[in-house]
């Protein structure tokens, strides 16, 4: 057995980022993700990298924009209110086709809200909280190993598709510690960065921009981005399938909620109920086909989220027409994390043999 | 005679009053109070409190009343 380290989720992201070759971190403090800038402030100097605690979340994402425009792997991290502040620039980076990693260890809202684990930012992450109709890659880890692995994947996908990628976590997966098996960054074919700025002595002029004023230019650019999104959906949708084959009820959810739900599903199985779990790992692209095919035979879906209902819309848009989608939400705040026992109760409520 | 009153439940045992009192009439208790702090104790010796209120001015928790 390889050496297993006991690692906090936030730190697993840092370890994954460093293994992925990220040497530029720009951030601003906010609970519950402070472990990330703190870790990076310790590590970057020794790795010949740069750590800047910027004057704000807006400045940090713009530093990422600048560093990443030179082709470097760069990242920022924050939590919900801080992520909201980055929306304009994220839209720019999507339009400019700049790869980078944004980590959102989200907290409960709206507004200042609280610092508890929450999934209230699904819409913002997945539909595009910024203006102009763009998308970014969104990955939702539900274990510490995934915090590490998906961080590496995020950097690669971002480069392959030339777009920002986000890790969407929360205080549960961010603060939790679990065994982690570090491993070298897996090899993936990456395209040449023939767009990256470097001074014209290495060739002709390069411009990284999102302004398109020629007749029809911007529309064509939008359809080009759209084609990438379809490509992503076809090639990069990822999900975990747990005992859905014979299920008559499929529970779903992402990240920490799915993690809790999985135990509820196991408990239900122990009680003899045919229940499975379908957990989207990529929220964008959403694994719509997995839902479509699973609901070919299983007509009851129970979606569980730490909010008042967000991913449930994508589930409804994905399932077979005659499937019923139920929702159980716990918009989070102090003392509002659901327990497996509670979710089992919900499974019982909708379960039909 | 001037004196002070320390609210034990408000006191967080920071000790700033102890250094503020020119007469050195305040010390910290050895005993932990309900909130886990060791509160300040006022104890006159042959030197008496002047009611100068410097202790109270220094107290971040407004735990000291001064009478004169």
């Amino acid at each position: 057995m390889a050496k297993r380290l006991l690692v906090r989720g936030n730190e697993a992201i840092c370890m994954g980022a460093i293994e992925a070759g990220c040497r530029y971190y720009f951030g601003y403090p906010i609970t519950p993700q402070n472990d990330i800038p703190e870790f990076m402030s310790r590590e970057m100097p020794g790795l010949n990298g740069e750590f800047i605690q910027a004057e704000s979340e807006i400045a940090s994402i713009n530093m990422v924009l600048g560093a990443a425009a030179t082709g470097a792997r760069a990242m920022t991290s924050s939590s919900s209110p801080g992520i909201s502040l980055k929306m304009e620039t994220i839209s720019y980076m999507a339009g400019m086709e700049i790869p980078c990693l944004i980590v959102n260890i989200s907290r409960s809202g709206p507004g200042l809200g609280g610092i508890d684990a929450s999934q209230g930012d699904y819409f913002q992450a997945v539909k595009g909280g910024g203006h102009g109709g763009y998308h970014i890659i969104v990955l939702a880890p539900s274990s510490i190993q995934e915090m590490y692995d998906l961080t590496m994947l995020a950097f690669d996908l971002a480069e392959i598709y030339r777009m920002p990628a986000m890790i969407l976590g929360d205080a549960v997966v961010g603060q939790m510690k679990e065994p982690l098996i570090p491993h070298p960054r897996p090899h993936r074919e990456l395209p040449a960065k023939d767009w990256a700025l470097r001074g014209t002595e290495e060739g002709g002029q390069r411009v990284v921009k999102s302004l398109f004023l020629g007749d029809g230019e911007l529309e064509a650019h939008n359809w080009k981005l759209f084609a990438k999104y379809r490509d992503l959906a076809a090639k990069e949708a990822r999900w975990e399938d747990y005992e859905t084959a014979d299920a008559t009820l499929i529970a779903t959810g992402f990240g920490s909620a799915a993690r809790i739900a999985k135990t509820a599903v196991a408990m239900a199985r122990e009680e003899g109920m045919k229940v499975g779990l379908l957990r989207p790992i990529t929220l964008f692209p959403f694994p719509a086909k997995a839902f479509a095919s699973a609901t070919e035979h299983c007509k009851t879906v129970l979606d569980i989220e730490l909010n008042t209902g967000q991913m449930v819309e994508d589930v409804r848009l994905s399932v077979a027409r005659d499937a019923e989608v139920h929702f159980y939400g716990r918009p989070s705040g102090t003392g509002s994390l659901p327990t497996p026992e509670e979710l089992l109760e919900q499974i019982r409520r909708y379960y039909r043999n | 005679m001037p004196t002070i009153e320390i609210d034990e439940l408000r006191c967080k045992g920071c000790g700033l009053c102890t250094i503020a009192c020119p007469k050195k009439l305040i010390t910290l208790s050895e005993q932990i109070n309900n909130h886990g702090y060791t509160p300040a104790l006022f104890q006159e010796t042959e030197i008496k409190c002047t009611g100068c209120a410097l202790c109270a001015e220094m107290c971040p928790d407004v735990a000291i009343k001064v009478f004169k």
Partner: protein
Amino acid sequence: MFMAGYGGQGVLLAGTLLAQAAIVEEKNVSFLPSYGVEKRGGAAVCTVVISDGDVGSPVVGNPSVAVILNQSSLDKYGPRIKPGGICIVNTSLVDLSGFPRKDLDIIAIEMNAVAREIGDARMVNMVAVGAYAARTGAVSIDALAEALKDTLPERNHRFIPANVRALEAGASLIGKSGQV
């Protein structure tokens, strides 16, 4: 397993140690901390799930074992313990007289006293962990001792022997009476 106390009692360190010991024993484990917004004086709570197979939810609604280090934790979390579960209580700070549940295996230990006895008042958490390990067999004291190396920062390794003593003291209380 669920442990609750107030900040400063070392609840999170204890939980981390347990998790690390589970790794030493090649088990799976998750450690989930949670604490109040205030930096000081708030409650400190953590959940450690140890399993030979996959660890599912790091959140446990009704823990089968709870370690309770202060009064407010008992008041708040006592009712949640699974019927028939184990509740290890630090009776140095907790008054059990008003606690209504009769369906639990309650293990009362004067942890502060025990810690003071072995010479370090701060070792309450280790006493608790020792008792927990001995009572449940979730991890061995050896594994815990081993795990201390990874859990404590290098500069505190000199305290390892004291910590081990506290673990053993906690364990011995179980060992002695089977059931305190």
